[in-house]
């Protein structure tokens, strides 16, 4: 019954989206007389959202109630699962996650419809058409290929439940974040296409879609980090990123999207790169679809390409369609996309943005190349060859270092033509401090070139960015007589975009420190300990105190070891690494115990005990220096993005009247 309601509602949603696409195009063709059609199309696109909400609601209801005759419910839910996991089971399997994906897309499109269109009205019909087309594609998949509403011809007593490894808060939020990020990029793409088709090629499409882009970018970033955090907490290999094709599939559009976020600023400021921005957002959206395709079809990780899922060829067709469509309109409008200004100097903010774009695109191409390498070699050499994980680190590492370095310098360059003397003065202190840091680290026996570069660049960029805040606040304090903190607050509030962006830059510095520390200085050891025996790693000693075992409810057995952690003969923590064994799934879940500090994570895994008796257990221990800077950086990144995206009443006013931007940016400074 509920399954029927869910399916019917979904089909109605599909039909409504088709109507929205058709009506919007009919309206656009009729010009002024078509307004009624466009209004109708807009209402239809909004209506898809409640229809899919009913569909998802029915599915969630069935998951909670345990309607196991529905095959999807039986495969991802079980009676014993707590309610929040039953809800999360909506995206716990392929069919459900595609349904959820469609819902997210519908939600985004509906919300965009509610914005004040005002002078952007000409874009509306095409935004509707492109958004609706995306929704139609995913709903077609859910209705015809991967439906979650199919029924079994018997009623199982219980479902098999979600895989225990996925029952982690990070895993519960991670997929929706990625979907929000992926789907979110539909909106700027729709605006870009609308601008191309309608011929309204001023910056209005960028302004109109800016917050949507930032939201999509933030969600995608969080999706990536949460995935890493889940791997770190649950998979027990002490790492957070493995360059797996599925991870890469989300990273590649993130790289292109980050390039786009930066390059639109040149168009807004200087009327340049119009063609490039259009191309970039199309590329980003194309990579989003490609990423979905790679993760869904199993084409890369599977040795048996294309045999796995029926959705593969359809995605392929959709990618071809999107690419063809984008390229066609880009070429058709190329003449109107000419730059209003030319580049005055290679030594300018504009050119720094360009270098930024080259670097991000190079990174995206690198990761894409690595991910597709098996396909490329199979196609051209007839032999499937992959690249080692080490290859990614080796090749992307220097590129990332260059991006971070540029992040410190570029904001100090002025538009049009920068002054070398001013730049030199602004960079003097950061350069000095980072050199001193590197010398200090060398004296501390840090010998890894990569680590020295990583920490040196972090210090340089971090300081250069902090100085931007410092000098602006000091200048304001001097002219206005405000206290330093008030002045700091005011400059941020008055120019959220700029300083929100700088906060994000600072968060990237924190993440760089975390990645550098944990990548170059991870230590590990392992061994079997009798009760009372000790093992040492990097100045830490663990003492095995004992093992407890018990059954928790119907669902699982728990084995938990107790180890005392010592440093310099003083006990600093008691850790309880454990292994849970889920009876229904016959699946163990290893849960590491971690002592987290600013300096490092001390990470203990209980490896085994059964064979060796309760008096003895085996442990694997990792020391991950500075890793928490990575997570802390992520939190700061959220704050920075929110600051940058927050609506500002004074958004269109120049700020330079109040703000003399320090030593460097005096000429023609303006809002970033």
């Amino acid at each position, binding site marked *: 019954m509920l399954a029927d309601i869910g399916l019917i509602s979904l089909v109605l949603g599909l039909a409504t989206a088709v109507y929205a696409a058709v009506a919007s195009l009919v309206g656009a063709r009729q010009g002024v007389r078509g307004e009624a059609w466009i209004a109708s199309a807009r209402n239809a696109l909004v209506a898809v959202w409640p229809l899919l909400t009913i569909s998802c609601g029915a599915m969630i209801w069935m998951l909670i109630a345990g309607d196991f005759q529905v095959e999807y419910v039986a495969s991802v839910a079980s009676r014993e699962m707590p309610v929040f996991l039953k809800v999360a089971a909506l995206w716990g399997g392929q069919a459900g996650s595609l349904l959820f994906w469609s819902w997210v897309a519908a939600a985004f499109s509906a919300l965009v419809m509610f914005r004040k269109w005002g002078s952007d009205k000409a874009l509306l019909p095409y935004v509707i058409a492109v958004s609706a087309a995306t929704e139609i594609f995913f709903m077609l998949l859910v209705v015809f290929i991967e439906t979650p509403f199919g029924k079994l011809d*018997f009623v199982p007593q219980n479902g098999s439940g979600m895989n225990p490894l996925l029952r982690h808060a990070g895993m519960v939020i991670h997929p929706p974040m990625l979907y929000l990020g992926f789907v979110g990029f539909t909106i700027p793409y729709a605006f870009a296409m609308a601008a191309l088709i309608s011929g309204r090629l001023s910056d209005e499409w960028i302004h109109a879609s800016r917050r949507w882009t930032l939201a999509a970018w933030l969600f995608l970033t969080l999706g990536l980090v949460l995935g890493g955090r889940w791997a770190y907490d649950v998979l027990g290999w002490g790492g957070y990123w493995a360059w797996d094709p599925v991870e890469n599939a989300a990273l590649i559009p993130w790289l292109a999207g980050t390039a786009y976020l930066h390059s639109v600023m040149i168009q807004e400021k200087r009327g340049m790169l119009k063609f490039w921005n259009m191309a970039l957002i199309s590329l980003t959206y194309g990579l989003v679809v490609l990423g979905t395709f790679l993760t869904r079809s199993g084409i890369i*990780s599977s040795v048996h390409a294309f045999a796995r899922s029926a959705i593969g060829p359809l995605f392929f067709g959709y990618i071809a369609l999107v690419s063809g469509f984008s390229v066609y309109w880009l070429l058709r409008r190329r003449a109107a996309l000419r730059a209003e200004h030319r580049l005055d100097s290679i030594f300018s903010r504009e050119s720094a943005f360009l270098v930024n774009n080259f670097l991000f695109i190079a990174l995206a*191409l690198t990761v894409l190349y690595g991910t597709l390498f098996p396909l490329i070699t199979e196609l051209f050499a007839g032999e499937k060859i992959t690249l080692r994980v080490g290859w990614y680190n*080796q090749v992307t590492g220097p590129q990332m270092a260059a991006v971070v370095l540029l992040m410190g310098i570029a904001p100090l360059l002025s538009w049009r033509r920068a002054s070398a003397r001013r730049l030199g003065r602004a960079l003097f202190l950061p350069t000095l401090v980072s050199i001193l840091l590197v010398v200090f680290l060398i004296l501390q026996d840090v010998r890894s070139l990569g680590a020295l570069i990583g920490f040196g660049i972090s210090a340089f960029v971090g300081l250069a960015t902090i100085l931007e805040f410092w000098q602006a606040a000091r200048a304001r304090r001097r002219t206005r007589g405000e206290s330093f903190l008030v002045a700091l607050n005011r400059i941020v509030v008055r120019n959220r975009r700029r300083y929100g962006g700088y906060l994000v830059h600072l968060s990237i510095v924190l993440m760089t420190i975390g990645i550098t520390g944990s990548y170059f200085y991870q230590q590990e050891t*392992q061994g079997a300990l009798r009760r009372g025996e000790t093992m040492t790693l990097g100045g830490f000693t663990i003492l095995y105190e004992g093992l407890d075992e018990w059954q928790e409810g119907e669902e699982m057995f728990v084995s938990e070891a107790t180890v005392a952690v010592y440093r310099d003969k003083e006990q600093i923590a008691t850790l309880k690494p454990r292994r849970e064994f889920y009876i229904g799934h016959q699946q163990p879940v290893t849960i590491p115990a971690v002592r987290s500090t600013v300096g490092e994570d001390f990470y203990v895994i209980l490896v085994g005990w059964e064979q060796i008796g309760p008096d*003895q257990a085996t442990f694997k221990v990792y020391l991950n220096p500075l890793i928490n800077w990575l997570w802390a950086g992520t939190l700061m990144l959220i704050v920075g993005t929110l600051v940058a995206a927050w609506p500002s009443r004074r958004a269109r006013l120049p700020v330079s009247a109040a703000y003399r931007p320090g030593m460097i940016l005096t000429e023609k400074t303006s809002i970033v």
Partner: protein
Amino acid sequence: MTRTSDWTTSAVGETSGDSRAWIKFVMGGVVILVALAVVLYSTSQGNAQYFLTVGELHDRQAEMVGKDVRITGFVVADSISYDARILHLEFDIVDQAGSDQEPLRIVIDGEPLPDQMDDEAQAIAEGRLQTDGTFLAETLMMKCASKYDVEIEE
């Protein structure tokens, strides 16, 4: 300049001097791309691994001994043996779960037993084929849990 450089060229009627900076940029971009291509190409030589199935590895055994290989397959039921004391893991894989193909013995040391290691789970191992016909792995990944199909029991 060709059509693709529209975003780089300035307004119509520019003098050649005006576009010099842009040309430098396009050149710069081209240089970066070429450099990237060279880096990608040259580094992938030294980091390449054959990506083989169990059957293919058996067929090319003589040629593959000692070479860097990534292999994937399904764990044979009841073949898993793990010594928790020394973190020594051995198991067999085949190309299709349940087939009677000649299995490949995977050996790996120093790693905890992966949670997903189970009969008929899909394993991806990187390492080298030994002369005795076993595969000594350096890394072992079990296929992401989210893709597990579950059997529903009546």
